[in-house]
């Protein structure tokens, strides 16, 4: 049994966490914490409830929509249903749609997904390709860092036990940008990714000017793979460039063999999904993909539609 601490401000929460290091744990939606508690992976004496912290909630567009701030307590379901993000950060919404079930997404938060440090988690790859920064609050104040620096290993982040993830900030170029998130699973829903990939491209005319490729579930932490992205920059994202990005991503990851797939299989799938995600991101960036329509999880359209 654990007691629950609830407070109205970030400072109070941080102070409480600092005063109860090692015996307290933030709880957001609880969809990871409650499972971990039941399985004996965590034994908190105190659960520190974040649901009443207004400052952590909400999706806010700034600078005329060029920047979006996503509070860490934002529910995955809110991301999924946000029409603006659907158009401008398609990968994020695609990933949100695939996470758990409607019930889970209604509870689960983006902050919880990142802070749990699960290598296969859905949120890191799309946020990484959208160049997210994260804002962290601790006893000595606030700091901002690139999201890629948050992850420390399976189930671990760099946050101190008395630090909170406050929000994420993404830049959203208003045109010529497209992104996509794809994943391989055993079932088509309610499953964790065996491989998750996200790609984003910025396109000027018909040339890729910027690209990012991120991978989940194929290394101890989510990866941003610059070599793969570089294979896309300067190209018109032809099949050769997409395939090359896939090959480089496969070479850069370090998957394991477990009950949900072998190491070599996962590498192959990384190559396939990166190639597909890059192509879909390109179609979106160039306006050739219907706005707001998500890609199927594996990036293959049912053959009638194709």
């Amino acid at each position, binding site marked *: 049994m654990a007691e629950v601490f609830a407070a109205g401000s970030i400072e109070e929460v941080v102070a409480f966490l600092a005063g109860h290091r090692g015996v307290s744990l933030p709880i957001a939606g609880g969809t990871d914490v409650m499972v971990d508690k039941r399985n004996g992976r965590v034994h908190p004496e105190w659960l520190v409830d974040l649901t009443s912290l207004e400052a952590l909630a909400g999706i806010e567009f700034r600078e005329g929509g060029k920047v979006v701030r996503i509070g860490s307590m934002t529910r995955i379901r809110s991301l999924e249903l946000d029409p603006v993000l659907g158009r401008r950060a398609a990968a994020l919404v695609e990933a949100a749609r695939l996470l758990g*079930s409607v019930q889970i997404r209604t509870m689960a938060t983006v902050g919880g997904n990142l802070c749990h440090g699960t290598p296969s988690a859905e949120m890191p790859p799309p946020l990484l390709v959208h160049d997210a920064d994260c804002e962290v609050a601790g006893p000595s104040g606030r700091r901002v860092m690139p999201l890629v620096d948050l992850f420390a290993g399976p189930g671990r982040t760099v946050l101190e036990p008395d630090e909170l993830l406050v929000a994420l900030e993404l830049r959203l170029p208003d045109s010529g940008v497209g992104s996509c998130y794809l994943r*391989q*699973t*055993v*079932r*088509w*829903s*309610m*499953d*964790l990714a*065996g*491989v998750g990939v996200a790609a984003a491209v910025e396109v000027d005319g018909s040339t890729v000017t910027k690209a990012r490729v991120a991978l989940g579930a194929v290394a101890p932490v989510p990866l941003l793979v610059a070599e793969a992205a570089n294979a896309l920059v300067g190209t018109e994202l032809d099949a050769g460039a997409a395939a090359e990005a896939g090959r480089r991503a496969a070479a850069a990851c370090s998957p394991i063999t477990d*009950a*949900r*797939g*072998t190491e070599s*299989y996962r590498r*192959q*799938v990384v190559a*396939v*999904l990166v190639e*597909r995600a890059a192509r879909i991101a390109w179609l979106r960036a160039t306006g050739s993909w219907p706005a707001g329509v998500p890609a199927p*999880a*594996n990036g*293959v359209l*049912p*053959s009638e539609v*194709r």
Partner: protein
Amino acid sequence: MAPSCCQVRVGPDLNGAAEVGSDRWDGRAMPASQVDEFQVIGKRVAKLDAPAKVTGRTVYADDLSMAGLLEGAILRSPHAHARIRSIDVSAAEQLPGVRAVIYAGNVTQRPFGYSHDNLPLKRDKVRFIGDEVAAVAAIDEETAKAALSMIKVDYEVLPAVFDPFEALEETAPVIHDERPDIVGNLSMRWDYDAGDVDEAATRAAVVVEGDYSSPQAAPVPIETHVIVASFDPDGHLTVWSPVHMVFMYRKELADCLGLDWRHITVIQPSVGGSFGGKIDIDSHDFITVLLARHSGRPVRLALSREEEFTGTRTRQPIHFHLRTGADAEGNLLFRDAEVVSDNGAYNAWGSHAMLVAMNTVTSMYRVPNSRVRCSVAYTNKNYGGSVRGFGNPQATFAVEQQMEELADALGMDPMDLRLRNANQSGDVTPQGLEITSCGLSDCLRIVREQSGWDQRRGTMRGRHRGLGAAAFIHVGGGARIYASDGCGAVVKVDDSGEVTLITGASELGQGSETVLAMIVAEEMGIPIDSVRVVNSNTDVKPWDVGVHASRTTFVAGNAARMAAAAARDKLLETASELLETPAGELRVRDGVVEVAADPSRRIELGRVARRRLLREGGGVVMATAFYDPPTHNQDKDYRGNISAAYGFGAHVAEVEVDPGTGMVRLINLWTAHDVGRAINPMSCEGQIEGGAAMGIGLALSEELVIFDGEIVAPNLHDYGMPTAVDVPRTVVNLVETVDPLGPFGAKGVGEAALIPVPAAVANAVADATGVRPREYPMRPWKVKAWIDAGESSHASRRAAEPADKGGGDNG
């Protein structure tokens, strides 16, 4: 093979009045008076238990409360194979709140199970990870768990064997070394021969040969096993257990624990799903009773989800090496199966899955010659139970893939090959199965037509799409595996006019209550809502084998119909006096007896019952029946007609395979089932849709992944049951052949729909990719590897002939 007659008795009136109805039964002569104009049969009646279930009012075992109830918990083996050197429970016994700690050293227990090779609490050895070693009853769950951690068990870890082929080798560690009568790890051997396979092979124009394997899968009821046991001060035991076979349960409980079975009441509370997992008694049942006995208090034992996966019975992996041969015209000549069944640490009824698998090898389509050589191996894993389909999905996966391989080799359409060889009414298969009603050809034609088979199969590979078919045969009129395959029924009408059916059959969520009530309502001419079904208590209900083998509608339905007819006749006898009209000129509709020629002369049934009861020399309206289908136990050569009817059906699956990831998407599933008669079409559709979903899970995702004997992720997430997103629109066609023996012509449909799904999906994957799946579930990495290699990499595995034909008997 004439059906034996006189299996059915209509019992004497319980109040001693004159016997009604016939005590002779020719197996066919059900009164057909109302067959043409049904009032209730064939209507879409919502399940009677549905409102309580969806509003949370249903009482499951876990909802029971009683004064002084303790919570039980089991200590399970962490080792796959180990000798128990010693067990020290003294510290656990000292823990405040603990009321009993039991282990083999302080209880009286005898071996149980089909081969009597199992003890509720293991004494000398543990044989799989999850085997029961000790148990605690305490005032609450936390205390019980804490006490478990204080029990010290000293194990000597032994080499273990997990692969059934390795287990059958001479050098393998012997799992039941305490039993000199068991040779090595060969727990059972099934050898069957019909005709001359070798001679037939010389005549075959085409022979196909291959290996087909299935995984360890679980029934996964959403309600885990929950058992409550309580002794009253006089020593009478009451057990609440969600078991299907309550009467056998009582007997086995008594035999194992040395109790007097006359002093045991078994009550089946509402069951939150079983799918065969709760069919018969298991260690946890005995343990709950032992805890109640040792603590002197009522005890509840509720398995956790993890225990439900690691500590209960599973669907056994079965490995087939199969050959099928045909002549140039496509007439099947022979089937030849070498089979190894991986049945785990002990022999429950799961060791008999081959009984059903064998029917499919010998009798699916007309096959004049067949041979089966099957070894059932002990391995250090969870052991086989009687999961829905019972050996048949595994066999059908081999047999029906080979039909399409054979057709391709012959240059024939697989549907034409199937139709050419389809079983027909009047056939007696070489194994002695008497095929009476049979809609197989119609089922094949329907799914062929609906799926666009002739235009589309073999044309969509460029789009990675494919169609695949599979049909099945399954017992649908009981299955005589026990001395009786019968079920009793009592119908009574008291002064209120309410009709009560007391049936031996159990409700598991499959809808038997509703179907039996419909049968009684139809037979008596009353509305469905004036029938109450009582079915849960061994003190009250008449004997029944139990729910298995898709037998309830057929067997319990016939019994209920007979009792209802007899009760109706009594009422008509009295009504005849009251209306001064011969009974033969009366009819009953909507609960009212009327003169057929002049319906204005009528009397309500409740009044008839009262007029019969409330007079001098009156009597209650009560009739009993016992129906045992006219079938035979199979002989030592496995010949004999074990079921009074056989269910047939055919499915076509359409898949799209992603060659990049190996992910398979099931796009469509067309099904056609010969159900004899759809007593309640909505129930039939529900059984078929649910069964199909279960089959889809088997085909694509469900598996207990086991490393070194340990189920690595015993949770609902990793196990891989399909979700709604994984299950496509399932088209259900009900083919009504009106079985001559079934109640109103109905046959069993409970297990049917999952059986052909893995085979149909595999055939569709083969059509889409050109690569033939050799095993299921077809998880993405396997499919990808097969596609990349251009073939399924599954190595050919064949069973060695056993050195000695001895080892377990085959019952």
